């Protein structure tokens, strides 16, 4: 009796192992997005976008017949935790590719690890100086991609847009932190390229309650526009003080402000407020009916409503998650799952259509963005609309 039992067990085991060997192995993707912590807002939306992309791919039979399997661990907005997740994905889970942190600190901490292990990591960080590193040290092959417009393209675009509007005298005001310092540097870098003169520059403590002293000094220099990386509360305070001082010139703020909650925090004081953003920021009905981007975005929004039984809420962040997965799919489909070949393939990918942009990568551009993929937005009513 006992012998028979072991025989059956053995046969079952052999059959099971054959079964495993025959089914194509899934594409394993480690995801370290932040589901909790102070910065979780963007990642939670990106995760939803990512889940829609995976459903879409698996419904069509996977990538080259292989289903996509996500292993997702919360990065908790922490550098240590995100780095730990990436190491775990590589050593324990033996994932194929990693979709990584949305924030600058954690994404920069993961770079040396993925470069050493030669594992592709697609992040959404805007502050990571990935492109500047590629330009500075072209020999060092980077395995990190960051699908967001980032600081540098944003500054170049803002100057380009001001020039297009015939503006030549600009004042800048930035927070006293790393972001503000970077912004000052990049505006000074791009201004001469577009024939723009920076007539005044002020800084402020991001915890300030009142910014009228700085703004009145800018006002005295008669600028034609003001540029700033102010976002969130200091952005809202600056805009309120700006209107109180009766200033009536374009105020170009950070891309981080293209959200509905930012508009709400302005209490109706929305005139002359601008911010750059990806095309998905625009209300989809304002895009031309024959615009291929409109069809893509509408399909995404329909899938989103079907899966989560609520309307898509923050399309630009959801788009980062969705686009990250789609870029990885495209690379595996055409280059196999060898990570170095995938990286080389993505570096040669041009005009790849996503929710946020048509990505064109190169050996010195791991963001896929360019100035013509960025648009200027202004507030009409309670919604960000494309500015002319």
């Amino acid at each position, binding site marked *: 009796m006992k012998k028979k039992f072991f025989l059956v067990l053995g046969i079952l085991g052999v059959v099971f192992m054959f079964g495993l060997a025959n089914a194509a192995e899934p594409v394993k993707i480690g995801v370290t997005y932040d589901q909790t912590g*102070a910065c*979780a*807002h963007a990642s939670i939306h990106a995760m939803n976008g990512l889940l829609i992309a995976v459903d879409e791919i698996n419904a069509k039979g996977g990538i080259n017949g292989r289903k996509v399997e996500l292993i997702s661990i919360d990065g908790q907005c922490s550098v240590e935790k995100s780095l730990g997740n990436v190491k775990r994905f590589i050593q324990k889970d033996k994932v194929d590719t990693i979709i990584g942190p949305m924030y600058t600190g954690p994404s920069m901490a993961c770079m040396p690890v993925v470069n050493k292990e030669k594992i592709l990591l697609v992040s959404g960080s805007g502050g990571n100086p990935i492109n500047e590193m590629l330009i500075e040290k072209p020999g060092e092959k980077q395995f990190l991609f960051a699908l967001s417009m980032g600081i540098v393209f944003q500054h170049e675009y803002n100057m380009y847009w001001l020039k297009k509007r015939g503006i030549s005298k600009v004042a800048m005001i930035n927070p*006293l932190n790393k972001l503000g310092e970077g912004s000052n540097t990049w505006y000074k870098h791009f201004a001469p390229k577009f024939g723009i003169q920076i007539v005044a520059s*002020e*800084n*402020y*403590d991001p*915890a*300030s*309650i*009142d910014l*009228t*002293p*700085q703004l*009145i*000094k800018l006002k*005295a220099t008669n600028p034609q526009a003001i540029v700033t990386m102010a976002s*969130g*509360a200091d952005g*809202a*305070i600056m805009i309120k003080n700006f209107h*109180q*001082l*009766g200033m009536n010139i374009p105020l170009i703020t950070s891309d981080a402000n293209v959200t509905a*909650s930012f508009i*709400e*925090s*302005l*209490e109706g004081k929305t005139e002359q407020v601008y911010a750059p953003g990806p095309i998905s920021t625009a209300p989809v009905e304002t895009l031309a009916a024959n615009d291929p981007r409109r069809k893509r975005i509408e399909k995404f929004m329909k899938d989103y409503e079907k899966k989560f039984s609520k309307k898509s809420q923050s399309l630009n962040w959801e788009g980062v998650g969705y686009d990250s997965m789609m870029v990885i799919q495209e690379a595996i489909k055409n280059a196999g799952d060898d990570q170095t070949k995938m990286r080389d393939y993505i570096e040669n990918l041009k005009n790849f259509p996503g929710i946020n942009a048509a990505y064109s990568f190169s050996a010195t551009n791991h963001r896929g963005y360019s100035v013509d993929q960025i648009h200027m937005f202004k507030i009409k009513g309670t919604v960000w609309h494309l500015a002319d």
Partner: protein
Amino acid sequence: MESLTYYTQFLFSGLTVGSIYALVGLGFALVYNVSKVLNFAQGEFVMLGAMAMIYLVKGPQLAIPLAFFLSILFVAGIGILVDLIAIRPVQRGSPLIMILITIGISVFIQGLAGLVFGREHLSLPPLFFRGQVITLFGAVFDPQVISIIVLTVLASISLKLFLTQSWEGKALRACGENKIAAYLLGVNVPFMRTLSFALSGALGALAGIMVTPICLMFYQGGVMLGVKGICGAVIGGLNNIWGALIGGLILGLAESFGVGIISSEYKDAIAFCILLLILFIKPQGLLGSNK
């Protein structure tokens, strides 16, 4: 003319910021006078008052006066809970232990508020003078500041009257002077401390509701206001009710002129230099008595 505009604007900006510090500092002074405890959760009372008001006005859309009183009652209730749950069990402990407990409470309330109210910055329309500004020599002034200063003065006067004229007020002060003596004379010491926490909760909520139209609020927004409020109260003198008002305004003006004339980078350095200077020359604060 231009420099006159500058200085007027620095003055207005200083008054704006100073009035906020003053109103926040008042709550610290109250609890300190009664229990000799610096309540580091005072900033969280400010934040909770603002958040409750924002929720009531934007969620169930209550009438502003009703939402105003409900928010103040709510935070006064939180003050009572804080005392009953966290302070009363260790009431025989030293003031140092109590201060550490209030820091713990502060972190706890922040975490909870982040979950309940979200992590976004929220704003509130002003109670009076909506959408108007006062202009003088090209410099501008938010009329909300006048309501804040008037309210701070009114709150200070009523507190002063309450503490010196009513039996409960005198009992409160007695607890601050000498707990055991007060107890022997029939004062219910634990009840008085609960009362002081309820009052400081109410004051904090009032501050939160008044400052949010100027500086917005989020779940960690009470921390910075709390620190500046303490500084203001210490500059003015913690054991004088008017100290918080004077100290807050001095701090606000110092920051504003520091930013305007010297540089934004030295804003906090200037403010804290003034704090240190006053502590060296007059450790009990500008208006503090020597006792």
